[in-house]
């Protein structure tokens, strides 16, 4: 797949005079967004090594230190400290891990449920289809954030709960799109031939339908990553997401709100910039994938 081709390889390839097809495939490749995402992933993986301080332990003696370049800041705490004296940079670094883990797993959970139900309802049709689609309609009627808050208020805050909640809230978008695709795939020759050849329904859904809808699922997953991360941050901000003292970006902003009115800008602005970079990058990559991989989704 063209997507996974590293950008550097593409550059050297063009210099070596590779057929223009390969270049066309990479046209408009969102290089910067992909690099940002890779960077965040790298930071998330090596957070233990990269973080200069413990993200959860601070000292009240050095609370509300401004970033290094402002008066009163020190190089020890490059991006300042928060209301209990924890290092902001270290918390941002570990926050990347929380966002990545929650974001990616939640998208996988949602994608798993949605794709499965989409295929089953699209292929089997009949009452299975009716049930899945009515449930989907109901799900979509609830504003996602409110629904997530409701669930979170019941089960209580924890990282695992958040993943389950986000998966439960967002599977419907996959189900809708995948079902639509399956409906048209069902009419295609290869599926009919598989039926004639005596394949069971399960084999057809698993072997013949699934590989053909994976593209759309990947596109949707990339686009959903941004939505899921913003929702996680919002839940954490409201106090029903990742529980403190874990360093999650949304939580950092909720804490930072306390220092906002006296001008401690770094506590809210910096985590927000991290979320923005990650979500923007995911959206730009998703947009590009959508156009490249799946012409049917272009109007989405």
């Amino acid at each position: 797949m063209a997507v996974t081709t590293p950008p550097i390889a593409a550059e050297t390839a063009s210099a070596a005079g590779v057929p223009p097809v390969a270049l066309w495939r990479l046209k408009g490749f969102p290089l910067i967004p992909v690099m940002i995402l890779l960077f965040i992933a790298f930071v998330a993986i090596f957070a233990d090594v990269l973080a200069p301080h413990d993200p959860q332990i601070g000292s009240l003696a050095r609370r509300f230190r401004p970033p290094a370049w402002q008066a009163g800041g020190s190089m020890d705490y490059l991006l300042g400290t928060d209301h209990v004296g924890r290092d902001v940079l270290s918390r941002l670094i570990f926050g990347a891990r929380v966002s990545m883990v929650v974001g990616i797993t939640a998208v996988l959970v949602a994608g798993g449920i949605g794709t499965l139900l989409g295929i089953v309802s699209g292929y089997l049709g009949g009452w299975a289809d009716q049930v899945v689609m009515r449930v989907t309609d109901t799900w979509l009627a609830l504003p996602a954030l409110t629904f997530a808050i409701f669930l979170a208020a019941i089960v209580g805050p924890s990282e695992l709960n958040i993943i389950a909640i986000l998966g439960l809230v967002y599977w419907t978008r996959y189900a809708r799109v995948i079902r639509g695709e399956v409906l048209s795939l069902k009419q295609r020759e290869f599926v009919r031939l598989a039926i004639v050849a005596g394949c069971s329904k399960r084999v057809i859904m698993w072997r013949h339908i699934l590989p053909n809808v994976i593209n759309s699922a990947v596109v949707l997953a990339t686009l959903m990553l941004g939505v899921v991360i913003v929702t996680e941050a919002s839940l954490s901000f409201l106090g029903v997401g990742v529980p403190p003292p874990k360093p999650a970006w949304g939580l950092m902003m909720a804490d930072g709100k306390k220092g906002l009115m006296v001008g401690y800008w770094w506590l809210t602005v910096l985590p927000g910039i991290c979320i923005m970079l990650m979500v923007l990058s995911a959206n730009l990559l998703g947009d590009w994938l959508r156009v490249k991989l799946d012409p049917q989704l272009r109007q989405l």
Partner: protein
Amino acid sequence: MKQYIIRRVGYSLLSLFLLSLVIFLFVRVTGDPVSLLVEPGASPEDIENMRRQFGLDRPLWEQYWHFMASLAAGDLGQSFYYRTPVLELYFQRLPNSLLLAAVAMALSLLIGIPSGILAAVRVDGFWDSAGKIFALLGLSLPSFWVGLVLILFFSVYLGWLPSSGSGTPLHLLMPAFTLGWYFAAAHMRLTRSSMLEVLGSEYIKLARLKGLPEALVIGKHALKNALIPVITLAGINLVVMINVAVVVETVFAWPGIGRLLYEGITFRDFPIVQGVVVIGGAMIVLVNLLVDILYALIDPRIRLES
């Protein structure tokens, strides 16, 4: 037509039924509902009394029947914190939410429609790109962050606008913009695509052939038709806005429904959380039904299709 409406109403009722079932079951399956319904710090006898009072010792279907009966009677329970019925609290806060949503909607349309038209008329031009960036940011930025940054600039640094509360038109500006941006982005995108579609149609070509000035073609002939889907979306979004404003209302301490929901969460006031979600879901189901029926009335193709 009659058949179509009956079927749509049937679907909506089914949706409402599923909605109530989901809410009812989630509360009971994920743990002991008494721990949610009882006030924090209650004694074991109180908990036992509560269990009997709410009928939680009875079979599940009986509980559901009771739940539905009280819902139908408009009884959403009583808030622990305020000691008043949830519905009363809801209606106290509703005007504030409506006001915020109305101003946010006005802002989002004022930004979204003109920029959408500009983008469609000059496809791939400067305004199109600028609009795309504006929309992308609007859809990507967490609204609570936008709110906090606005507070930082306009309240803390410049001191122009009040950072929280309500009462004057100035209080409305920042929350309305924060809430409206996301929707402005959606309205802009839809205006653009709908305008592009209309501009490609035969009657626009005719208008141009007649030699009408371009401003008249776009501003009068094309706009009228291009705005239909946008107005529909705006109608639905107005209801959505009331229900997703929780983050914005929390940031600006705006006393609306969202703030009520947030208070419900922080005070572990479960009846409020449940009530706000039930009413919100029902509102959206109803608006979708209205839109479907309205569309069927306007466009015979829809009601004949299925």
